[in-house]
C-alpha cells in the first residue's frame, strides 16, 4: 500500500516535470525541472530498496547538472529566443524514434513477465521481503569487482580518455594568439 503510494507519487512527479522540462523556453527552468525528474527517479530507486542506486543517482546525475548550469549561464544567451527548428522531416523522425523506443520497452517488459523461474525475468513476480534483502552496496561492489570487472575497467578507461581529451582541448597552447 505505502509502496504503491510512494511509487505513483514519485512517478507522477517524474513524468510531469519531464514534460515541463521539454516545454520550457528558459534553459534554466528546463534544468530545474530536469533536477526534479532525476530526484523523483532517485525516489523510485529508494522505494525499490536500491539505496546505493538512489544515492549514486543523486551524486552523479544531479551533481552533473551543476555543471550544466554553468554551461547555460556562461554559454547560452537567455535574452535571445532559441532558433526554432521547424523541419517536417525532423518531426517525423522524432516521432518514429520515440515510438520505436516505447514499443521496444513495452515488448521487453511484457516478455519478461513470462520468463519462468524466480530471478530470471526482469520483473520478479514474487519479490523478496524488503527486510530480507542483502545490503545492496556490498552486493553491487562484489558483482562490479568480480563478475563485471572487465566492463567496469573498460568504462573507467573510457571516462579517463574523455577527461584527458577535455583537458587537452582546454589547455592553452604557447603559440596560440
Amino acid at each position, binding site marked *: *500500500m*505505502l509502496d504503491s503510494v510512494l511509487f505513483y507519487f514519485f512517478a507522477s512527479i517524474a513524468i510531469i516535470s519531464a514534460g515541463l522540462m521539454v516545454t520550457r523556453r*528558459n534553459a*534554466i*527552468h528546463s534544468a*530545474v525541472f530536469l*533536477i526534479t525528474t532525476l530526484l523523483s527517479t532517485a525516489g523510485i530507486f529508494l522505494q525499490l530498496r536500491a*539505496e*546505493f542506486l*538512489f*544515492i549514486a543517482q*543523486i*551524486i552523479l546525475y*544531479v*551533481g552533473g547538472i*551543476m*555543471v550544466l*548550469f*554553468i554551461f547555460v*549561464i*556562461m554559454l547560452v544567451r537567455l535574452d535571445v529566443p532559441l532558433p526554432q527548428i521547424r523541419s517536417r522531416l525532423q518531426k517525423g523522425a522524432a516521432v518514429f524514434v520515440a515510438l520505436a523506443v516505447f514499443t521496444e520497452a513495452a515488448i521487453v517488459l511484457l516478455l519478461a513477465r513470462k520468463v519462468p523461474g524466480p530471478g530470471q525475468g526482469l520483473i520478479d513476480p514474487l519479490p523478496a521481503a524488503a527486510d530480507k534483502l542483502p*545490503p*545492496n*552496496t556490498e552486493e553491487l561492489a562484489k558483482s562490479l569487482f568480480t563478475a563485471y570487472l572487465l566492463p567496469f575497467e573498460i568504462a573507467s578507461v573510457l571516462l579517463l580518455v574523455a577527461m584527458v581529451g577535455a583537458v587537452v582541448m582546454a589547455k592553452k597552447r604557447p603559440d596560440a594568439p
Partner: protein
Amino acid sequence: MSPTLHAVLAFVQTWWVELLCALLTVLVVPLIAGYIVLVERKVMADMQARLGPMRVGPHGLLQPIADAVKLLLKEDLIPDNADQFIFWFAPVLSMTAALTSMGAVAFGPWFQVARDINIGLLFVIGISALGPFGIVLGGWASNNHYSIIGAIRSTAQLISYETTAGFALVSGFLFAGTLNVRAIVEHQRADHVWYLFLAPVGFFTYVIASIAETNRAPFDLPEAESELVAGYMTEYSGFRWSLYFLAEYANMIVVAAVGTTLFLGGWMRPFPNVQWLGWLDAFPVLLLGATGVYCVVRAGKQPAYVQAMFMWTVALACFVIALVFGLVELGHIVALRSAQPAHLFQVLDSIHPGLYGAFWFLLKVGAYIYLFMWLRFTLPRFRFDQLMRLGWHILIPLALVNVMDVGIALVLQLELGWNRWWAMALTTLFTLVVAALLLRWNDRHAATASSSLLAPPSPLEDANA
C-alpha cells in the same frame, strides 16, 4: 474507521520514534544554529579582545531570539527583474537539503531519524551536496552581476572540493569496511582507535574540504563582501536571507557530524574500552555543574533585575540537566555493581548509552565547529586562483595518494601481518613526502606562471567580468 485513516495510524504506530526524531531535528536545529551564531560572535570578540553582543539578555544570551524576530519582521523584497519562482524557491532548497541530510546522522546511539540505512554517510554527503543548487539558483534568479559571480564561484568551489572530501572519506571507509553510520562507530570501538589516528592525512584533507564546501572563511569567496557586496545573497532580505543563513550553519553541523562519526569516534566516550578511565563519565555532570555555579556567581553582578532572573534560570536549567545526567550515571553504576538492581536503576541504566552518547557526540561536533571559527578568525580570505590551485594542484593529488596509501597499509596489515601502527606510520610518511614534493613543484610552477602577472584571473571570473 476508514481504511486510509487506519493505514495512517498504523504507519505512525510503526514509525513514531523516527517521526519524533525528524520533528525534533527540524525544530531544534534552527535554534542551535542561532546559538552557534552567538557563540561565533563571542569567540570572534574574544579573539579580538572585545566583549561581543552584550545588550540583549545577560552576556547577549537572548541575541539569537532578537535576531530571529528582526529577520521575520523585515520587509521581504523580490526585485522586479528577478525570476520570481526560482527566487522564492532557491533558499528553501538550500535549507531542505541541509535538514534532510541530517536524517542519517546519528546523534548518539538512539537519536537518529533513519536507522540502519545501508548507505549511511554517503546519504549525508550526497544530500547535503544539493545545497549549493539553492545558492546557484538564487544567485542566477537575482538577476544581478554580483549574485551571479558569487553563484558561479560557489559551483566551482563545490566541484573542486567535493572530490577531495569524497577521497578523504573513502580513506576512512576503507578502515571501517562499511558506510553504515552505526557500524562505523562500532568498528572504531572494536578497533580500539579513532580513525583520525589511522588516517591523519585523510582527516586533514577532510577538514579543509569541509570548510570549502560550507563556504566558510577562508574559503567564503561566494559571499566575499569586500568584492561582491554579499555574493549570491545580495538581493535577499528578511526571512529568505535567514533561510540561507540557517542553511549555512546547518551545513556546518552536518559536515562536523560526518567528520566526527568517521574520524573522531562518533558518540563514543574518549577511550571507551579503558576501564580505569571510567571516571570520564562524570565529565558531563562536572561541566554542567561548573556552568551552573558560574551562572549563580555572575547573577549577583547583573545590572538589572530581569537579567539576574534570567541568569538564575540558566543556572537552574544547568543544575536540572546535571541532575538528570548524575541520576542516569548513578543507575548505570548501580546496575554494573549489583547482580539484582532495583527496577528504577535498571530503567536509568537503559537510558545511559543514549544520553551519554548524545552528549559526547555534541561535544565533539562543538569542538569541530570551534575549529571552523578559529580558522575563520585567523586566516585571511584566499584569492580565487589560490583557491583553485590549492584544490586541484595540492589537495586532490594528496587525497588520491592518501587513499592508495591507506589501501597499502591495510594490505600490509591484513595480508602480511604487520603491526597496524608500523603500516600506518610508513604509509603516512610516504603521503607526507608526496605532499612536500607537490608543494615544492607547485611553488616553482606558480612562480613561473605568475611572474608576469601578479594575480592571473581565473577563467571563470574572466568570462563573467
